[in-house]
């Protein structure tokens, strides 16, 4: 072995020692620079190969190149190991207490139960082809009573049953058509809707209504949804089918409805509608008790309705509503009542208390 190859072997040994001794990727880089860098002996030696006699040249050159390749491989290998170790150490250092609480996402708020219920009902009737129309909350005696066939003696007209607007001219004239009041039902919009649109008409009227009353089932303000369908051949059976569809959509597939005769000034015949109780079977709960929801009757009253009275149609006959040619039904329900029944809310006033702990439940 020549002196030169002897030298190459020594350089390689020294470099290997340095590579093996490097404890970090930084130290390894230092070792690479000092043994394989531009100024390191082995590359310099390679550059000097040209000056050797041809007999030695090939041998020395091959030995030096082999040594360099071997060292580069060693650095690569060692570097990979060190990087792995360093990553492991870093990841261990980055550990967290995984049992701590998460970052909360922004909490989602809720629509009020009245709004949710209103939308649910609206959607049922929109799917049945109805338009949703709304009317003023401050109405007149004409639209609230007279045009709806309320006799002057009908008790709901009394100031004990209706809020009147203070017009600054003494006590309100409850018989004058223009006297302003807070509507006691959404029914005035029946008349306004028919004035605005000739038959056929299929509308529902959601909205806020007012009556001077306050207890567990009455608040001075509440919400109703009115329905009106007028066409040439609408029957009482159609009313029953429509409300059955509604009752099943809201209260469940198994529901039945029954029509009970009643009196409303603006419908003839008039019926109250009961839905079969969804809390019991035949008035008895599964544990054998008298059902608290339907009071053991197996039926729950949900709304009032009927065939639109010819007098109501006559009041808008100028708009194409001839009671000999068109007919239809109307109904009105309390949104809060539906919501309370469906969700078991015991006291109407809770819905107007707006306690966040209640609002969050729905």
């Amino acid at each position: 072995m020549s002196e030169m190859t002897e030298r190459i072997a020594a350089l390689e040994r020294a470099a290997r020692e340095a590579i093996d001794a490097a404890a970090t990727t930084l130290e390894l880089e230092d070792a690479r620079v000092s043994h394989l860098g531009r100024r390191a002996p082995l590359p310099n030696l390679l550059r000097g190969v040209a000056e050797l006699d041809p007999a030695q040249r090939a041998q020395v050159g091959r030995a030096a190149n082999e040594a360099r390749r071997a060292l580069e491989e060693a650095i690569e290998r060692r570097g990979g190991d060190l990087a792995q170790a360093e990553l492991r150490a870093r990841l261990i250092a980055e550990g967290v207490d995984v049992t701590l609480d998460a970052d909360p996402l922004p909490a989602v708020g809720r629509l009020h139960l009245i709004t949710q219920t209103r939308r649910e009902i609206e959607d049922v009737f929109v799917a049945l082809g109805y338009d949703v129309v709304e009317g003023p909350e401050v109405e007149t005696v004409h639209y609230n009573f007279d045009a709806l066939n309320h006799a002057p003696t009908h008790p709901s007209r009394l100031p004990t049953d209706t809020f009147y607007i203070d017009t600054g001219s003494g006590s309100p004239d409850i018989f004058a058509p223009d006297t302003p009041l807070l509507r006691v039902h959404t029914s005035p919009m029946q008349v306004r809707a028919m004035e605005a649109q000739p038959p056929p008409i299929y509308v529902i009227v959601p909205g806020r209504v007012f009556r001077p009353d306050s207890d567990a089932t009455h608040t001075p303000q509440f919400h109703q949804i009115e329905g009106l369908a007028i066409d040439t051949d609408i029957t009482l059976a159609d009313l029953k089918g429509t409300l059955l569809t509604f009752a099943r959509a809201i209260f469940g597939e198994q529901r039945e409805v029954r029509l009970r005769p009643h009196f409303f000034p603006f419908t003839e015949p008039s019926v109250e509608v009961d839905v079969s109780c969804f809390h019991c079977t035949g008035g008895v709960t599964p544990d054998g008790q008298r059902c608290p929801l339907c009071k053991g009757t197996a039926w729950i009253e949900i709304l009032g309705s009927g065939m639109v009275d010819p007098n109501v149609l006559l009041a808008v006959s100028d708009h194409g509503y001839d009671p000999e040619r068109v007919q239809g039904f109307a109904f009105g329900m309390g949104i809060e009542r539906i919501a309370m029944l469906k969700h078991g809310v015991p006291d109407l006033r809770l819905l107007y208390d707006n306690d966040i702990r209640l609002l969050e439940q729905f």
Partner: protein
Amino acid sequence: MRVPLRWLHEYCAPELTPASLAERLAMSGTEVERIEHHGVGGAEAFVVGRVLAAERHPDADRLRVCTVDTGDGEPSQIVCGAPNVAAGQTVAVARPGAVMPDGTRLKRARLRGQESNGMILAEDEVAIGTDHDGIMVLDDSLAAGTPLAGVLPISDDVLVVEVTPNRPDCLGIYGIAREVHAATGAPLAPEPWSQDPAPEGVLDAVRIDVRCPDLCPRFTARAFEEVRIGPSPPWLKARLMAAGQRPISNVVDITNYVMMLTGQPLHAFDLDRIAGARLVVRTAHDGETMQTLDGQTRTLSSGMVLIADGDGPTSIAGIMGGERSEVHSGTTRVLMEVANWDGANIHRTSLALGLRSEASTRNEKGLQPEQAMQAQAIATRLMIDLCGARPLPGTIDIGGDGPPPATIRLRDARVSGLLGVDVPRDRCAEILTALGFGAEPAPDGLDVTVPSFRRSDVTREADLIEEVARLGALDTLPATLPAHRARVDSDRRASVGLTAVQRLRRRVTDALAARGLHEIVGWSFEGPETAQRLGLAERPATALANPMSAEQSRLRTTLLGSLLDAGRRNRARGAGAVRLFEQGAVYLPGGGARPDEPYRVGALLAGPVRPATWRDPRPPASDFFAAKGVMAATLDAVRAPWTVRRGGEPFLHPGRAATVLVGDEVAGWLGELHPGVAEAWDWSDPVAAFELDLDVVARHLSVARYADLTSFPEVREDLAVVVADTVAASDVLDVVRQAGGALLAGAEVFDVYRDELRVGAGNVSLALRLRFRAGDRTLTDDEVAARRRRIAEALAQRLQGRVRDS
């Protein structure tokens, strides 16, 4: 109305339990609110007894120790306190264990040392009268031990019926009996007025003058002599008691009894106290006064109808009699007045006087003239039978019967066309006949004659169809849906379901909820102090004429009051963060009688913007920019083109108040509340809020148009400009956008910097991010530089802004 079943059964007695009868009535249109038990509970413990001996109690002067045979072998010892008890009497006895009308159970007792095995009864103790002066003494023919229930009506069930306003004929027992007959098929007894015992002749004991026949369609009077005033017999008292009426004396009881039976009010005058033997029915003079039966002095006004005698007013027509001419214990001659009044007029008078009576509640419903003579017939029979009275011949009858009965055609086709189910003609006739209508066959249906007692309720074919429906169709009605052949003619709006505004409301409220706000539903009402505290006292508001309370006496002009109320309530109950919104109308008085009702959405934020956590223990408080962020997210969700400008409502912090514009229209306000206002709702930390008029927002929404944002890259440039502190950021951006022209795709403020040394006192440096883009090419550096120069020049020129070198 209270319907005692024993009384009802005299006219119609279906073989049904009270509950089944109530159900049948409810399903045919007569709502039964409840069934009440009247009188004693369980009749077995009540028997007829014979007093064998009645000795003075050894230790009590007022008590007697009686030995009573109650028919079960060994006589019982009963201590009795009644002054009239005596040996030999036949009496009513409650044995130990008896349940009294008030629900108490009678026990064996010891009274002052003497054993008492039951009770000898006074009429009030079994709720068949009000007399408590002594025990009832019964007919001696009754055997001891006879069940008392067979002798006296001591136990009854009462249907409490809600009579709808269209059915005044059901304000009498016989009217209810007719319904029961139609609903159950049980036979109906003949009308109780079919026999009239009054002698024919001409009555001249009084003269009657009706001066307002339109308000008094019929006035009838009969006179009776030799009247003996006294208590009514037990059966009558018991019926009145069960019907909820106190027995008073035979004549007064007769008027009440006949009213309960027929629905027609009557009034008994003491004939000798009618001054001048003359009654005038006329309208009152304004300010005229009279004293009514209840001892009150009433001031009348014109339009009210009264009955006057020679000394002035003696009755308020149809509502209440006067004290002066009342029947009293010494009365011997009675004038029985039964009249028909205009219902609306009675209603109005009763309302104006605040005076309601059994008579007024019936008269105001609009009774029929025929009922007057029906009531006279029954009353005459009872005056003879119960008061020993002798009717004077003749009846004064001014006005007579009502118009002849109407006949209405009920078409078969119309019945099935309206109901959606066929009801055979025979069945229709059967139902109508049971209800008292006449029904004759006609070519296409029936010719139906309306009885007088249904004259005002049934005037049209639809009314007849209701009768058929309630008794013959509802229980078999099929459930169908409308054929729904809605036409979409050129002049007719197509069905849209929800309108654009309604959809907008849903999207806006969904966006608010998605941002963590809870929806409340507040009152439309508020008190004047709400406006006061908001500094809006001068703003006009709609007031109620008859509010339930001062706190609910006006209609709100902003949603802020109810949001603050709800916020305060939640804060008081421990809620740290309050994030609420509300939607609904506010009421703004305009020109007309009715206020405008814009539909708004409002939001209120207080407390930390997000919950504190271990990573973020002190999140910032909700302030102006928190509220602005929620509002921006909401308006951006519906793509509303919005801006704000400084200054807003009086209830806002003057330096943190903004007016919100959508398009160029004012749509609402945004800001932190003035600390004084927040304080009025017990808030010491910042409260931020906004309110938007959604009708305004809806007017400025447009359909989004496609823009090519992806084919060519965007060039971003930053630019810092120093302007005076008084210049709003939005003014700067406006200038930038104008100068930037179409190539400027966006400009946002990303830093705000104040430093006396570097930007000068009274100045602010705004760092802007500018985004340039063209839809058809990649912009060159030169193009962008030219734009940037133009922007810098415009800022210098229009806002004296200085662009800092970056």
